């Protein structure tokens, strides 16, 4: 029963919010939403407690050293059954799902508590909380589904609620535009997932995880003839899975929606665009590990995409000035690390980083929200400064989050990110070297932008207007509690769970993750790494941190001069500030030609032009033309009609006699 409770309680919360809105519409007045909001939080919290119970159970099995069957299948009524196909509503609770459950329900509970305070002045607070609950529900459906089709329901559902939440203040044109962009770019990923599901159905005659994963070996080294190319079947399907994951997790190429999605309220950014929804792509890859493992090419693609995105996100974040956009690009970059780990077959490690990242990134976003709230909706970092004295608590927890992100020793980010880099360093293949180099660089840039963020926001002298600074206030209690809880989690979560999540001999993941030993042929033990290499990422981080402080604090004048006078440096600055020109290239070379094609060619030339002429104008003018001659027969003289009649009789007799 509590399996159902975990999933459906957030939906109950959503229903409560709907009821509330309906009553409000009918009564034409606003009701105090605190009651509904607390009910919704109660639902999410209960869901969290139940998932904690599941998690502890999974943990206990691990402690006793059982080869666990912690997986539980629940079959609901049949969706569609025929003689040869059956699709069921089913739920699967294995370790992977349970870890995701913990992440989702804990972060969402905290974010909902936070948004009581954050959205206190918004008349639609109950609706907002309801949307968050609906999002949690769809996310839980996504991670507990036992087949790809049901996962797709959750997958589309979270995209939809993400649209609604980005668009929450829908009267702002920018919000509506960003929401549209998020939906459109995500739809490309969804397209990949649907095609992958269809191909699964074609080859495996089912969409169940279990059946697909157990029969994958049949298709190893099998080739399909696609447009006269011989393509490996597993790579072919995996390509579409990767497309889906890239779209959802905002990896390079389809990342453009994520920074724009920051138009939504900040709790949304914390919950959806940092901790949960964007990790769905990583979840998809990890979930499909028994399948993807058989395609080394697909793994290499994942690793390369991940490493490139890690560097891209980190470099772009350094040159942004919007507080939330910096954190958004940082999310992009950290998701790249997760992809990198997946590509090197270290799925447990990817999940570990996902787990830690959820906490410290949610913390960073929530702190950013507190700062923006305090500064009177100012998001530009250049107009902040000096907040260390004004907001001491926010300053403290945000610094914890930042240091955790940088991988400062013994904070949670250190355990996972360093391990990812070490894994890349001990992987003796081209892909491994590529990943290590780019990952290391990205780690350096991570420290740089973290330092820049901390410096500009907290340490430098105040750059805001006097009135703004005067009204800055420390967070209220509803914002206070989620922040310190998340701060503690981002300190300890790495240390506590490291033994569970990673390591070769751990049984924690049970059968939910599969690693093909062939892929580990080039992988040495991370313990064999030289200490110098192990220290390198940390040292680089600390070094870059101080370099940036030096640049901003002491060499500020020098660098301004340098950038102003050198064209090369300026164009480099623009390159990173304009996000590697991705948006501009997409708009100019893809979207505009596409619209021109559909308007000027398809619509104007074919629909209104060619077809209109052939099927509309031509028949009409032909009719008029013929009519002009036939009209002459209608002369009005009786002798003419008699002549026609006689002619007809004569012709009839003539043909009769033939």
């Amino acid at each position, binding site marked *: 029963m509590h399996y159902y409770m975990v999933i459906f309680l957030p939906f109950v919360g959503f229903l409560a919010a709907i009821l509330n*809105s309906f009553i409000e*519409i*009918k009564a034409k007045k606003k009701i105090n939403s605190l009651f509904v909001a607390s009910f919704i939080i109660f639902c999410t919290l209960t869901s969290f407690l139940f998932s904690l119970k599941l998690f502890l159970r999974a943990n206990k099995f691990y402690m006793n050293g059982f080869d666990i069957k912690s997986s539980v299948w629940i079959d609901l009524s*049949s*969706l*569609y*059954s*025929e003689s*040869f*196909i059956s699709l069921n509503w089913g739920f699967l609770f294995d370790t992977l799902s349970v870890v995701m459950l913990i992440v989702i329900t804990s972060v969402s509970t905290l974010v909902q508590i936070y948004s009581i305070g954050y959205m206190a002045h918004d008349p639609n607070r109950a609706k907002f909380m309801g949307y968050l609950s609906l999002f949690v529900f769809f996310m839980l459906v996504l991670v507990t589904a036992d087949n790809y*089709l049901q996962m*797709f*329901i959750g997958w*589309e*559902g979270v995209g*939809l609620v993400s*649209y609604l939440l980005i*668009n929450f203040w*829908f*009267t*702002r*044109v920018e*919000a*509506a*535009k960003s*929401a*549209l962009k998020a*939906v*459109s770019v995500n*739809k*490309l990923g969804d*397209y990949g997932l*649907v*095609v992958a*599901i*269809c*191909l699964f*159905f*074609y080859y495996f005659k089912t969409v169940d995880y279990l059946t697909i994963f157990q029969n994958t070996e049949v298709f190893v080294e099998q080739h*399909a003839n*696609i*447009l006269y190319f011989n393509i490996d079947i597993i790579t072919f399907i995996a390509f579409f899975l990767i497309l889906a994951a890239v779209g959802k997790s905002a990896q390079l190429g389809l990342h453009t929606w994520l920074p724009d999605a920051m138009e939504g309220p900040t709790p949304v950014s914390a919950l959806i665009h940092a901790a949960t929804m964007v990790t769905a792509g990583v979840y998809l890859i990890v979930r499909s590990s028994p399948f993807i493992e058989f395609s080394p090419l697909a793994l290499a693609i994942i690793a390369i995409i991940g490493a490139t995105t890690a560097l891209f996100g980190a470099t772009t974040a350094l040159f942004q000035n919007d507080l939330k956009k910096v954190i958004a690009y940082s999310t992009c970059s950290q998701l790249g690390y997760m992809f990198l780990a997946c590509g090197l077959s270290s799925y447990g490690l990817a999940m570990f980083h996902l787990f830690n990242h959820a906490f410290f990134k949610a913390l960073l976003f929530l702190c950013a929200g507190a700062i923006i709230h305090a500064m009177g909706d100012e998001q530009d970092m250049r107009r902040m400064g000096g907040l260390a004295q004004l907001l001491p608590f926010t300053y403290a927890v945000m610094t914890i989050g930042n240091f955790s992100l940088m991988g400062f020793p013994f904070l949670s980010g250190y355990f996972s990110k360093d391990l990812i880099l070490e894994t890349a360093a001990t992987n003796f293949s081209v892909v491994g070297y590529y990943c290590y180099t780019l990952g290391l660089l990205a780690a350096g840039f991570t420290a740089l932008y973290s330092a820049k963020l901390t410096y500009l926001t907290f340490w430098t002298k105040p750059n805001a207007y006097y009135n703004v600074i005067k009204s800055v206030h420390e967070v209220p209690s509803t914002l206070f509690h989620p922040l310190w809880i998340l701060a503690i989690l981002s300190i300890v979560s790495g240390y506590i769970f490291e033994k569970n999540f990673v390591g070769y001999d751990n049984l924690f993941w049970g059968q939910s993750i599969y690693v093909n030993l062939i892929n580990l042929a080039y992988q040495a033990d991370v313990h064999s790494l030289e200490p110098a290499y192990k220290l390198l990422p940390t040292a680089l981080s600390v070094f870059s941190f101080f370099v940036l402080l030096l640049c901003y604090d002491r060499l500020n004048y020098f660098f301004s001069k340098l950038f102003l006078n050198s064209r090369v440096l300026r164009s480099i600055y623009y390159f990173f500030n304009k996000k590697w020109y991705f948006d501009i290239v997409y708009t100019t070379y893809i979207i505009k030609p596409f*619209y021109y*094609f*559909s*308007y000027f060619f*398809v*619509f104007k030339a*074919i*629909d209104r032009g060619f*077809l*209109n002429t*052939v*099927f*509309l104008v031509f028949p009409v003018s032909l009719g008029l033309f013929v009519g002009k001659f036939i009209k002459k027969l209608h002369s009005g003289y009786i002798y003419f009609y008699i002549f026609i009649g006689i002619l007809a009789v004569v012709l009839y007799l003539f043909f009769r006699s033939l």
Partner: protein
Amino acid sequence: MFGFTVEITNILKAIMVSSFIFFVVCFVLLIFGWNWIIILSFIPIFSLYASFCIKTTDEIRAMVMAIFTFLQLLIFIYLGTVKANVIFDIAHVFLFEDIYYALRIDGIALLFAILTNFVFLVAYLSSRAYIKVNYAEFLIQLATIHWLLLQCFFAFNLLFFYIFFEAILIPMFLLIGIWGSRRRKIFASYLFFMYTLSGSLIMLLAICYIATLVPSLLWEDLIHLHPHLTFFVESILFFCFFLAFAVKTPMFPFHLWLPEAHVEAPTLGSVILAGILLKLGGYGMLRFLIPIFPNASANYSYLVYAICLISVLYSALIGLCQLDMKKIISYSSITHMNFSVAGLFSNDLLGIQGAIYSMFSHGLISSGLFMCVGVLYDRYKTRLIGYYSGLGVGMPLFTVLFFLLIIANVGIPPFSGFISEIVVLFGLVHVNRIFVMLLFLSSIFMTINFFWFFNRVCCGPLTKSVFGLKDLSADEFVSLFFLVFSSFIFGLFPSFIFSFSLVFVEHAVLY
């Protein structure tokens, strides 16, 4: 809460009197030897007669008709759930020589009849919100179309199918020509009439030729025709039939009438046109084209796929650059209908079942969307998107229902649009994998298109052109909610629909 309570006594009185008249008529006809199926299919006409026998207002007459339609819907659902796949009684009425007026109710006929009644129930309920002039005449047209559609779906004789298929043009022509909104409506109604007529006259020639070969034009005799035909003759007959249905569906080169007719038609005209009339093409293919000419269908299926693929991508692309709301929705109708035609020709159980399901689901969703446009047109007298902005502020109920219909239309779960898309794709993937990939590209375009549509209409700041925001009236709310809710329910429990068509598809369509 709803406006019904005010007139409830009047409506009850009207129902009592009219149902008395109704039952007298039915009883007399039963005594005179009419079959019960024929009486069932005549219910729209009888209820029209009964409601015009009593002395009351036209609004109450519409309510009475809606209630009779609802009862009929219940009967159909009862028949479907109790013994869905049984072929019910066949009503033969001997006319002259060897021509029978024959009706038969089986699974798919019931399914389409249920869809018809769904849409007409909504149309009767909301008609008083949309129609301001010549209301009584409008009801007569509506009931006539309803009756003709039921005849069409129950027809067991190809000749009578053809007759009713054509006869629907007449009331529809009047509907567009009289109740349309602009000067161009005359042109549009002619266009609609001539297009459909010229397609189906060719089918009439083919029917005449077939009539010389078979003992009768009953469906049972027709499906045994194909062994006696050479492939050449079968191909020619196939194309004659295909042309008629392709114009009605409509498929790529013959689709010009649809946006034109939709834009000029009154709201309820569009609802009926998109909701059911387009399904006649698909129904004709399912019932007659594929079972009668299986060899030609198998042989030319790739040609049909190609046409479908072109139509789907073509209309999805054109939809992207439309500014008229009705044109956007009508081009998306073309996309959906061609999706289902591709499924019909897949010769795969899933593909065909999904195609039937997608016709059903599209009937619910597109009629809802057209009704939404009608709501806006009624208030602000324009259909151009540019004049709208920020309706979410003052019309929350409308915005919610409109949004739900849009996500249903672009195929987001758990609405019925999703199931229809995915099941059709599951069927088609056995035919060709590349085809599936290309076909599904339309989904991306349509998503962008419709979310943009929603953004423009319901989001953004309020503009001056949408003054005096007035949310949905009770009639509009009930009818829209009914459509959204049924789409949701059928999306959650699709096996209800699949069970209707299973036997027919297994026995008649798969070759």
